[in-house]
């Protein structure tokens, strides 16, 4: 396993927020826009809970030490409705996670993107968007 920790701390310019985020809470209060990171590791636990999923990921650092990171994701309800279960993403699944680190400095982050080894993004294969109004008035 070539999993390794890549934490990129960059000073990103804080621009005015663009677009509307439909959020349960203020994520910018929980995570730091100035601490974007990329983590590579294997899934050891998925808390499929509300209001937000939490992915526990074992990340191997360059010196071989393994640390457990907690990654915040979205509400699982719609995933369940689409047939996604805990068995869909088995323990041991390799994930690359782009996100932002928690403001309290702990081993926690929000997962902006969850990417599988083949480059595809987690769960997106299940989406089939683009509805057409069936009837209007």
């Amino acid at each position, binding site marked *: 396993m070539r999993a390794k920790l890549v934490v990129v701390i960059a000073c990103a310019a804080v621009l005015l927020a663009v677009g509307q985020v439909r959020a349960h809470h203020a994520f910018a209060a929980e995570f730091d826009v100035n601490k974007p990171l990329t983590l590579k590791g294997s899934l050891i636990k998925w808390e499929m809970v509300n209001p937000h999923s939490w992915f526990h990921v074992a990340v191997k650092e360059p010196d071989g030490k393994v640390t457990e990171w907690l990654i915040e994701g979205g509400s699982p309800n719609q995933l369940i409705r*689409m047939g996604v279960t805990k068995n869909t993403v088995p323990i041991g699944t390799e994930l690359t996670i782009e996100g932002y680190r928690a403001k309290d400095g702990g081993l926690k982050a929000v997962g902006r993107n969850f990417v599988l080894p083949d480059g595809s993004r987690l769960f997106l294969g299940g989406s089939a968007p683009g509805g057409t109004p069936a009837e209007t008035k």
Partner: protein
Amino acid sequence: MNRRSLVSIGTLGLGIAVVLSVSIAAQTPASAAKAAPAAKAAPAAKAYTPPRTPDGQPDLQGFWTNSTYVPLERAQGVTKEFYTPEEAQAAIKAAADREAEQTEPGTTADVHYDFSQFGLDRSQSKFTSSLRTSLIVDPPDGKIPPVNAEGQKRASERAAARKAAGGPYDSVQNMPIGSRCIIMGGSGPPMMNAGYNANYQIVQAPGYVMILTEMIHDARIIPIDNRTQASQGVRQWTGLSRGRWEGNTLVVETTNFNGKNPFRGASESLKVTERFTRVADDAIDYKFTVEDPMTWDKAWTAEAPLAKTEGPIFEFACHETNYGISNILAGARAEEKTKAEQAKKGSN
């Protein structure tokens, strides 16, 4: 390829399945994302006879969603009440595009998980549609009436009280009601599109109608036995509802709100009147009228149709696993500590 491009392809690829190394693609029927039928036009509504419950009520039971891209208020620059079908399609696509793009990388709005990955974009689930340019049908301009002097005074007082209580992350109590998992906008009344997980279950029994809101698992129990309203001293987050049948329409009047989660800045004297009429097997016309002379000089009315969707409603258990609250508070304390240390260094 940048993040925005990925999101756009993922969300608006119109059925182009991304093959994942974990097998989830086959588990989601493509039909799951079709737009739901809107409430039928008036002539069809007259022809439809709703089924009856065993005790003879018009049957509203089942799973429903009010997810929609139609905004509550008419957008700036839009002056007509109805779009053409082509314009309505374009408006939906534009709104779905904005939703899929979500944020700009490196901005505070980007500090978030990708909604599309978790199937939380409205376009990824059933949603209702209509040619209306706003849910508000009265006033005719599609806008909430201006807040009157009394309402403005109260808004100022509430803002002052929030300021006096300290910063937004000084304590749990200073954080928004939704963040604290107490109540979210979908519960109502009035029942408003929550953006995602906008699902409801209606259950009827002799003398009662119950409306369960998926997010965050609120059950509104509405007596329909002609009982009088409780005294003014009894107040609840979702008010106290009393219902009655007018023909095939369930009319629900709600007052006695506790005022801690004011709908659009309303006072405790808010009165919401809802009308549920099943107009097809898969559609309920849902209209609501908002009255509060302490906030608006005129009542206002909106139509937000409910479309049949698939159950069950999954338990939300929001409060039990709301780790975000402790993380936010811990983050705020860490920031304070950093600033204090920097100030100390500066003074040395």
